[in-house]
């Protein structure tokens, strides 16, 4: 028996109709997520469980196939076979509770001429709201199989599978009628288009003509290849307008005129009821309680993301350093082992550490999406976001960025206005993420004097708060500027958003999506991060400094000092020919002179051990001072000096490009401080450091300047990697990096120079 021929089916339908839930039900975990070539739209595909020859493609949720958005263009291109081979079957997923609008896109799919099955989803919710739907009437009227189901519970999925494996004949299209005035012109335009191009299948010509007539984006496609068709179409539009023919909504009206009576026949409203959803909305979008609830949710989510993630992050950190340590000790010493341990494992670890936070954030974002609260948050916040030229949809991506810019940038996908999406991505990294927190903490604790302002606010807390405020205000400012000067093309920000009924979230769906999204982050960003980590390791390790002689020197010095200590103790001996007593742990010797001698000997021993211990730290310090990073720090020093930064801070900034918090460990190494993460030792070392002329390297003003630099600078290769992925070009990540770096430089310059003018230090 030969295996059955491979077939592909496409899931198509409106957003919020449970399409992805059904996709997960049909494919189980046999899924692949990639991008459609050349665009940022996700291509989710998988194989039907139990029938590996059937490929299921989950198309992006669309209200229409007329290409107003990228998602709609891709969905259409897939369905007519302009992306891959055309699917053998289309499953239109429709919300039973909102049949009329949902059948609109179904009627468009039926015109394509593929076999169509209608999956009538969420019949349970429809019934709860008093709607009774007769699937057999619907089937007879539409002329395609209709399978009622509840995808969240898996009900009806088996029947759907059976129907998929026994597909119907291609659906009969154009059952609706176009108004006569427009209809009369379709054959002429069809002939014109066929004469000029031959890439459109005969069955799709009418659809192309209607799309081109109604929608500028669709018409523009033919500008190069079919100029005469475009000219004639534009002429007709004018002619229609003069005669008062509503060409713009000819197709829409025709379709709804067909759908309306069908839904009236198939759907019976048993009772008119305010739904539960309406009652919840009365509360959650209430003029006072609504914003309050939103605030509570936000604070709750952030609290959870920060505090719940901490134990896991600590565990990962410990695990990674233990793993790196094991690698160091198991493999033979040499540059390859160092690269593996210090470059690859530590570098990737710097990012993996944020995975718990990212997972949690994706979980909460998914929860808000699945319950329908996401749309409400946009509804509540739109008015505020409109001020900077964005819409309510940007609220959650931007707020997520407080935890980490990566999920924030990924969450921007929910924006269907491409211009809004790009602007949101570009400003998301200005929101102070959790990686900046350790840097803020170190420098604020070290250089901002503890105390209170006006007796109430702690100065250190206030400083921390201003860091967050600065970033947020700048993000909004940058959005307004980008909108005005950079992303000037594209549609104005508008707000047309469905407020779907509230739904009970399903744990399985939530967890599945959380894992999928995190995996996308880990895999895609991981590759770039790995490459950058390796480069940074080389920069920190080469050129190799001969630290062995340095170590020997330190060891010799330590030994000499110990000798000296003993020699000094010897001078105290009562008799010149007396030998020093044996080293004793206790000072309880009775004789005060002998006790003093014992104390000096112990001191000498202690100093010796400490010097030997520090030898390794000094060695590392010497290496990084002599390395390419140290060298870059020195090259940058003249540029950074106006900001108050010396070469060590500059070198730290270079290394912080891997991830912001790395500056702490780099400074730790440069200052030869063990356990830099603990903070206290490093804090003291920073405060004690002096320029050759005796000025302190770190003053409170330098610290503030550095803090401001961290607020604005984009020092995070993971963010660049994810921005590259989400915008599908290096151009925007590059622009992002440039504008943020320039911003950071200017802001720090103003702080430091301004502060000096004011006589601050």
């Amino acid at each position, binding site marked *: 028996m030969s295996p059955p021929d491979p077939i592909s089916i496409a899931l198509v339908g409106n957003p919020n109709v449970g399409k992805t839930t059904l996709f997960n039900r049909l494919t189980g975990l046999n899924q692949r997520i990639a991008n459609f070539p050349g665009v940022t739209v996700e291509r989710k595909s998988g194989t039907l469980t139990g029938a590996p020859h059937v490929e299921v493609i989950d198309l992006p949720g669309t*209200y*229409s196939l*007329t290409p*107003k958005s990228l998602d709609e263009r891709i969905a259409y291109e897939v369905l007519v076979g302009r992306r891959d081979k055309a699917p053998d079957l289309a499953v239109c997923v429709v919300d039973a*509770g*909102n049949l*009329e*609008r949902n059948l*609109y896109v179904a009627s468009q799919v039926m015109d394509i001429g593929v076999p169509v099955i209608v999956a009538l989803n969420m019949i349970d919710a429809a019934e709860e709201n008093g709607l009774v739907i007769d699937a057999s009437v619907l089937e007879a009227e539409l002329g395609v199989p209709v399978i009622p189901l509840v995808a969240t519970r898996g009900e009806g999925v088996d029947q759907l599978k059976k129907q998929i494996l026994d597909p119907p004949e291609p659906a009969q299209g154009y059952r609706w009628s176009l108004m006569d005035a427009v209809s009369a012109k379709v054959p002429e335009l069809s002939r014109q288009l066929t004469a000029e191009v031959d890439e459109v299948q005969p069955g799709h010509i009418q659809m192309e003509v209607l799309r081109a007539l*109604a*929608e*500028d984006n669709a018409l523009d496609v033919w500008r190069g290849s079919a100029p005469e068709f475009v000219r004639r179409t534009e002429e007709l539009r004018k002619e229609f307008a003069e005669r008062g023919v*509503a060409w*713009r*909504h000819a197709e*829409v*009206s025709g379709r*709804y005129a067909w759908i309306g009576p069908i839904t009236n026949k198939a759907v019976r409203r048993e009772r008119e009821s305010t739904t539960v959803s*309406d009652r919840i*909305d*009365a509360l959650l*979008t*209430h*003029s*006072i309680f*609504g*914003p309050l609830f939103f605030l509570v949710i936000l604070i709750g989510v952030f609290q959870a993301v920060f505090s719940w993630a901490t134990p896991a992050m600590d565990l990962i950190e410990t695990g990674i350093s233990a793993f790196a340590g094991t690698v160091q000790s198991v493999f033979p010493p040499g540059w390859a082992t160092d690269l593996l341990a210090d470059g690859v494992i530590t570098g990737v670890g710097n990012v993996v550490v944020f995975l718990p936070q990212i997972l949690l954030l994706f979980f909460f974002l998914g929860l808000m999406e699945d319950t329908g609260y996401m*749309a409400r948050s*946009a*509804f*509540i916040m*739109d*008015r*505020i976001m*409109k001020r900077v030229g964005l819409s*309510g949809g940007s609220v959650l991506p931007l707020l997520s960025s407080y935890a980490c810019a990566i999920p924030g940038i990924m969450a921007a996908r929910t924006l269907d206005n491409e211009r809004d999406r790009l602007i949101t991505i570009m400003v998301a990294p200005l929101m102070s993420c959790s990686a900046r927190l350790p840097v803020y903490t170190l420098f604020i604790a070290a250089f901002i004097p503890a105390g209170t302002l006006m007796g109430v606010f702690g100065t250190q807390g206030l400083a921390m708060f201003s860091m967050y405020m600065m970033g947020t205000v700048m993000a909004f400012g940058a959005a307004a500027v980008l909108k005005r000067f950079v992303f000037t093309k594209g*549609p104005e920000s*508008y*707000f*047309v*958003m*469905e*407020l*779907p*009924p509230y739904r009970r979230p399903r744990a399985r769906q939530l967890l599945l999506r959380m894992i999928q999204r995190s995996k996308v982050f880990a895999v895609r960003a991981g590759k770039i991060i790995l490459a950058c980590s390796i480069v940074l390791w080389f920069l920190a390790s080469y050129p190799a400094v001969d630290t062995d002689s340095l170590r020997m020197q330190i060891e010799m010095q330590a030994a000499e000092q110990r000798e000296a200590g003993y020699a000094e103790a010897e001078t105290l001996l009562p008799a010149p020919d007396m030998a020093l007593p044996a080293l004793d742990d206790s000072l309880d010797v009775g004789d005060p002179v002998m006790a003093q001698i014992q104390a000096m000997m112990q001191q000498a021993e202690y100093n010796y051990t400490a010097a030997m211990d520090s030898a390794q730290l000094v060695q590392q310090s010497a290496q990084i001072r002599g390395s390419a990073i140290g060298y870059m720090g020195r090259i940058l020093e003249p540029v950074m000096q106006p900001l108050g930064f010396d070469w060590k801070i500059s070198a730290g900034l270079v290394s912080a490009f891997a991830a912001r918090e790395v500056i702490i460990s780099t400074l730790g190494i440069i200052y030869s401080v063990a356990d830099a993460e603990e903070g206290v030792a490093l804090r003291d070392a920073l405060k004690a450091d002096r320029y050759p002329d005796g000025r302190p390297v770190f003053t409170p003003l330098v610290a503030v300047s550095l803090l401001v630099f961290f607020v604005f600078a984009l020092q995070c290769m993971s963010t660049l990697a994810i921005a590259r992925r989400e915008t599908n070009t290096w151009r925007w990540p590059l622009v992002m990096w440039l504008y943020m770096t320039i911003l950071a430089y200017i802001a720090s310059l103003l702080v430091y120079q301004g502060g000096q003018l004011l006589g601050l230090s």
Partner: protein
Amino acid sequence: MTLQDLRPGESGRILEFEPNAVTDRLMEMGMLPGSVVQVVRLAPLGDPMDLKVRGYHLSIRKAEAAQIRISKCEA
């Protein structure tokens, strides 16, 4: 009058649209000349509006609502 002029709880029948991409989208989502639209409520800050159209909730800004001419339905 336009849809913007309706107060929460009031309904109107759509007469015509300013022709542009946003109103094209609204039509595809079921707001056609002749359709009845109810303003359910306004967002806490007074904008956008929550509309009920063809049995579902749709939110649009007042600026968009101002592009839709309606005749008010008497309650």
